[in-house]
C-alpha cells in the first residue's frame, strides 16, 4: 500500500523484534532468513509482542492521531491506521496476532487446505462467531463470499482486491457483470460455499500464496448480505456508516452499547436500533466499546482484549506536542505519527522520559526517490546510476532521524520480508552505484562520463529538472537535501513544494503530469510477501493514467515477465529467490534512489502496557492494557 503521511515508515528497530517473533510462531514458516543483526534496533526499543502476565483488564485507552482513517468499511479500509482498528474490531479469515510473521487462522478454523496444484483453497469457518448488535446472528461462509464480491463495487473503493484476487475463477465475468449493474455485488463463481462452515476458492492458476495472504486483510471480514445490501445499493456504499463487527471491539452505534466496567462485559441498551454508527465523527473522534456478542474463548479468538474501551482522538497536527502529551500523560498511545527525532532522542537518553515508553517496529516498507525514466535526462540509465552513486543516502535517512528510524536501503525488499536476504540483505546487491550509503562521487563521475558528460557534471538543457515534493518536514527536508545532491552533479532543479496529498494526486501519481523527480514516495507491504512490495511499484502492467504507483514508470519487458511468473510460485524458498531476483533486476536498472527501510516508532504513556503488532507496525489495541 502506498505510504501516506498518516503512517510514516520507520524500519530499523523492528527487525530484531521480528526475529524473536519468528521463533515463537511455529505455523508461519521460516520466511525470514536473517536481518536481525543488521536491523540494528537496540534491544531496549524492541516492541513487546505479548501482554505481561499481570496485564489488568479494564480501562480506556486514548489513541492520538494526526489524521483520520480512510474508510470505516472493512471492504475499503487500507491505511495502516485503519488496520489498527480493524485488527481489533473485525475477524477476517486469516489474522495477524502481534508476533505473527505469516497469517494465522482467525475466523478460519485452522490453516486452509491447499490442493496439490495450488489452485483450490478450502477454508473452514469457526462456528459461534456472532455479529455485533443489531445484526446479532452467527457468521456463515456466505458472508465472507459476499464481503469479497462487494469489494469490486465502485462504491466500495478497495485498493487491493484487483491486484491480488483476480486469479479467482469467475473474477473477470464478475467485472463484466458489474458493467451492467453497478450497484449489486457481482457473483464470483470461483468462490463456493458448500455449507455454512465451508468456503472453497478456485483459482485459474497456482497463485494461492498471495490469495491467502490477501485474505488476511480486512476484505475477508464477513459482511451480512441481507443487512448490507441496502447500503451497498448506493454509490458510494453507505455501509461504512452501519458497519457490523465480529471482533472484541465495535464502534459505538445507536444500539447504545454500555460497558460494565466491573465485570468487563457489554450490553446493548436500545434494542430498536438501525446499527448507525454514532461513535465515529470523521476527523475528530472514534469511540470503540466492547462488542457484547464477542466470546473469545468459545470462538477460539487469540485476542485477549483487556481494555473496556478505546477512544481515537484525531487532529493532532503537531507531532512534537502530541508526543509530549502522550509521554507525560496517562493511558495514551501514538497512532499515525512518529515522534520527531528530537523527542526520540529525549526519550532514548532517558533525560526527560523513560526509554521504554518508545518502541520501534520494522514497517516492512521502503522509501525511495523516483526518477522518471520516460524523459530526459533520466531516460539514460547511466545518468540515473550517477545520481544514485552521488547520493548520500545516509543524509537522506537522517532527515527523518537516526538509525532508530531504519537502515539505509540498498535495494527494495525490506528486512523481514521473504527475499530480503536473498536480494543481498542490508549490504545489498553487488552494484558499485548503491554500495556506499554515504555516496561515492568517483563512481558518479564514472557514470556521468559514460553518459557523455566529459566533465562529470550534467551540461545542457536536459539538465534542468523538475521536482515536486512535500512542503512540510520531514519530507521537505528530504527533498531539500536531494536537491543539493542533484545540483552537485550539475543539474538545475526546479523544486515545487506542495502538500503530500497533492504531490501524489496531481503530480507523482499522474504520469502525464509527472516531474523528473518525486523525492517523497514510498511503499509499504500489503502483507508479508515480496510480491506486495515489488509488483505494483515496478511492474509495467501496473502503470495507470491516474492513481499510478509505478512512480519511475519503469516498464521493462524482462521484469514484467519475471513478475507474472513469480506470482504463481508456491514453494516458499523458490518464491523468495524469484522475487529477490526481480529485486536485483529492478535495482540494476536504477529507476529510483532507495534510501530507507523504515521503522515505525511508537510512543506510549507510562501506565500503558503497550503491545505492538509487528504486521501492522502499530500498537495492537486487542493486546494493549492499562495498568491500574
Amino acid at each position, binding site marked *: 500500500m502506498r505510504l501516506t503521511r498518516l503512517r510514516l515508515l520507520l524500519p530499523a528497530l523492528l527487525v530484531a523484534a521480528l526475529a524473536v517473533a519468528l521463533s515463537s510462531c511455529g505455523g508461519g514458516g521460516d520466511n525470514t532468513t536473517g536481518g536481525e543483526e543488521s536491523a540494528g534496533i537496540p534491544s531496549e526499543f524492541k516492541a513487546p509482542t505479548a501482554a505481561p502476565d499481570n496485564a489488568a483488564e479494564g480501562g480506556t485507552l486514548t489513541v492520538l492521531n494526526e489524521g483520520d482513517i480512510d474508510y470505516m468499511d472493512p471492504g475499503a479500509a487500507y491505511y495502516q491506521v485503519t488496520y489498527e482498528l480493524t485488527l481489533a474490531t473485525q475477524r477476517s479469515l486469516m489474522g495477524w496476532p502481534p508476533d505473527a510473521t505469516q497469517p494465522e487462522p482467525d475466523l478460519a478454523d485452522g490453516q486452509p487446505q491447499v490442493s496439490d496444484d495450488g489452485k483450490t483453497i478450502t477454508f473452514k469457518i469457526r462456528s459461534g462467531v456472532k455479529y455485533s448488535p443489531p445484526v446479532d446472528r452467527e457468521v456463515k461462509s456466505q458472508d465472507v463470499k459476499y464481503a469479497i464480491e462487494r469489494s469490486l463495487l465502485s462504491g466500495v473503493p478497495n485498493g487491493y482486491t484487483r491486484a491480488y484476487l483476480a486469479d479467482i475463477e469467475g473474477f473477470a465475468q464478475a467485472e463484466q457483470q458489474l458493467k451492467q449493474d453497478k450497484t449489486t455485488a457481482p457473483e464470483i463463481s470461483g468462490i463456493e460455499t458448500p455449507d455454512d462452515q465451508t468456503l472453497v476458492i478456485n483459482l485459474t492458476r497456482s497463485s494461492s500464496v498471495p490469495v491467502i495472504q490477501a485474505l488476511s486483510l480486512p476484505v475477508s471480514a464477513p459482511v451480512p448480505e441481507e443487512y448490507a445490501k441496502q447500503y451497498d445499493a448506493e454509490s458510494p456504499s453507505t455501509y461504512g456508516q452501519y458497519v457490523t463487527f465480529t471482533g472484541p471491539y465495535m464502534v459505538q452505534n445507536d444500539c447504545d452499547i454500555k460497558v460494565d466496567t466491573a465485570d468487563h462485559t457489554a450490553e446493548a441498551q436500545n434494542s430498536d436500533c438501525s446499527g448507525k454508527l454514532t461513535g465515529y465523527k470523521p476527523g475528530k473522534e472514534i469511540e470503540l466499546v466492547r462488542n457484547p456478542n464477542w466470546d473469545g474463548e468459545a470462538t477460539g479468538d487469540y485476542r485477549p482484549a483487556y481494555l473496556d474501551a478505546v477512544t481515537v482522538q484525531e487532529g493532532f497536527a503537531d507531532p512534537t506536542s502530541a508526543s509530549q502529551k502522550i509521554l507525560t500523560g496517562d493511558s495514551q498511545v501514538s497512532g499515525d505519527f512518529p515522534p520527531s527525532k*528530537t523527542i526520540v532522542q529525549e526519550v532514548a537518553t532517558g533525560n526527560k522520559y523513560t526509554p521504554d515508553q518508545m518502541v520501534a517496529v520494522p514497517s516492512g516498507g521502503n522509501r525511495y526517490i523516483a526518477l522518471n525514466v520516460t524523459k530526459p535526462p533520466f531516460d539514460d540509465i547511466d545518468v540515473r546510476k550517477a545520481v544514485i552513486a552521488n547520493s548520500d543516502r545516509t*543524509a537522506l535517512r537522517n*532527515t527523518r532521524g537516526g*538509525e532508530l528510524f531504519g537502515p539505509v536501503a540498498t535495494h527494495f525488499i525490506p528486512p523481514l520480508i521473504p527475499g530480503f536476504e536473498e536480494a543481498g540483505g542490508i549490504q545489498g546487491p553487488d552494484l558499485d552505484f548503491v554500495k556506499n550509503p554515504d555516496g561515492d562521487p568517483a563512481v558518479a563521475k564514472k557514470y556521468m562520463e559514460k553518459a557523455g558528460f566529459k566533465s562529470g557534471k550534467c551540461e545542457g538543457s536536459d539538465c534542468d529538472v523538475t521536482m515536486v515534493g512535500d512542503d512540510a518536514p520531514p519530507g521537505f527536508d528530504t527533498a531539500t537535501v536531494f536537491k543539493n545532491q542533484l545540483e552537485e552533479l550539475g543539474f538545475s532543479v526546479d523544486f515545487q*513544494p506542495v502538500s503530500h496529498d497533492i504531490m501524489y494526486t496531481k503530480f507523482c501519481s499522474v504520469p*502525464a503530469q509527472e516531474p523528473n523527480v518525486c523525492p517523497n514516495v514510498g511503499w509499504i507491504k500489503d502483507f508479508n510477501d515480496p510480491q506486495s512490495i515489488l509488483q505494483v511499484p515496478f511492474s509495467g502492467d501496473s502503470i495507470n493514467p491516474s492513481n499510478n504507483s509505478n512512480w519511475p514508470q519503469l516498464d521493462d519487458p524482462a521484469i514484467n515477465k519475471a513478475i507474472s511468473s513469480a506470482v504463481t510460485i508456491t514453494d516458499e524458498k523458490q518464491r523468495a529467490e524469484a522475487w529477490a531476483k526481480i529485486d536485483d533486476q529492478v535495482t540494476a536498472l536504477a529507476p529510483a534512489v532507495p534510501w530507507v527501510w523504515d521503522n515505525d516508532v511508537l510512543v506510549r504513556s507510562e501506565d500503558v502496557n503497550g503491545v505492538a503488532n509487528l504486521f501492522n507496525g502499530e500498537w495492537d489495541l486487542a493486546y494493549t492494557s492499562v495498568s491500574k
Partner: protein
Amino acid sequence: MASLVFLTLLIIVAIAAPLVVDIFGAPGPNVEDQNALNSTFATATGPSSVHIFGVDGLGRDVFSRVIYGARVSLVVAFVATFFATILGVIAGLVAGYFRGWTDTIISRAVDVLLAIPYLMLAIGLAAACTFSTGSSGTSAGCFGGHIDLQTPILVIIGGLLVVAGVAWASMRHLDEWATGATGVGAILLMLGLVSIPVPSVKPGIGVVIFVIAVTSWTYIARIVRGQVLSLREKEFVESARASGAGHSRIIFREILPNLTAPIIVYASILVPQVILYEAALSYLGVGVVDQPSWGQMISDATGDFSTYWWYMLFPGLALLFTVLAFNLVGDAMQDALNPRAKKT
C-alpha cells in the same frame, strides 16, 4: 552612531558573505554536514570549534546561514521599501493634487487595503503567487498561472496605456487622463506579468518583495496625500500655476521637493517593518524558500527550541539587532530632517 556603524558592517558582511564565511572557516549555508549531527539520533548539535553557532537539524551551519540570511533581509528591506515608497508617493501625489474623483478612487482603495488584515492578504497573495493547482495541473504564478491568453493581452494593453499616458503627459498636460491611463496601464501590466505561468514566477524573494510592496505603500500614500493637500494651496504653488506651469511641473518641481524630508523619514521607518514582515512571511512558510532567511530559520527551530536553542537564538539576535539599528537610524533621521514633528 553605533547603529550606523552596525548597519554599515551588516551591509558589508551581507555583500561579502562568502568571503566572511570563508574567513571563519565555516561551510556554505547549504552544506549538510552529516558528521556534525548526533551520530545516533541525527539531531542538531550545539556550538563547536567547527560550527561556532552549531548546526541545524539537517547539519547546516547556523553561523553561515545567519550571514547569508542577512542578504535576504537587506535585499528585501531595501528593494521592497523602494517600490512601496515609489508607489505610495505617486498615489499620494496624484490623489492629493487632483482631488475629485481621482482622490476618491485612490483614497477608497487605500481604505480598503488598510481594512484587510495585511498579513492575511500577504499570505494569500504569496500562496497564490508561489503555487497553485489549476485545471491544467502543474502551474505556478498568481491567479492560478493558467491565464495563457490573457497574459500577452494584459501586457500589451497595459504597456500601450502606460506609453500613451506618459506621452500625453509629456506632450500636453499631466492631467487626470494621463495619470489615469498610466495607472490603469501599470495595473494591467503588473497583472499580466505576474500571471505568466510556471518558470517566470517562482516562490522566493521576488514574490516576497512584490507582496510586501503591494501591501505596504498605503501609509506613505496617505501621508503624502495629506501633505500635498495643504501644499497645493500654498502661495508658491498658486504663483507657479498663475505663471502658467503645467501639472507635471507643479507636482514634480514645486510640490515633490517639499516632500523629500517626510518621504525619507517614513521610508526609513518602513525599512525595519519590512524586515520583520519578510521574517514573518518566511516564518509562516510563504516567504523565501530557496535560500536561508532569518524568519525561516526561526520557524524551523520553534518545534525544538527547548532542546536546540542555538538555531533560534542566533537568527533571532541578528533580526533583533538589525531591526533595532534601523529603528534608531530612522528616529535619528526624523529628528534631523523633520524637527517640527519632534515629540513635544
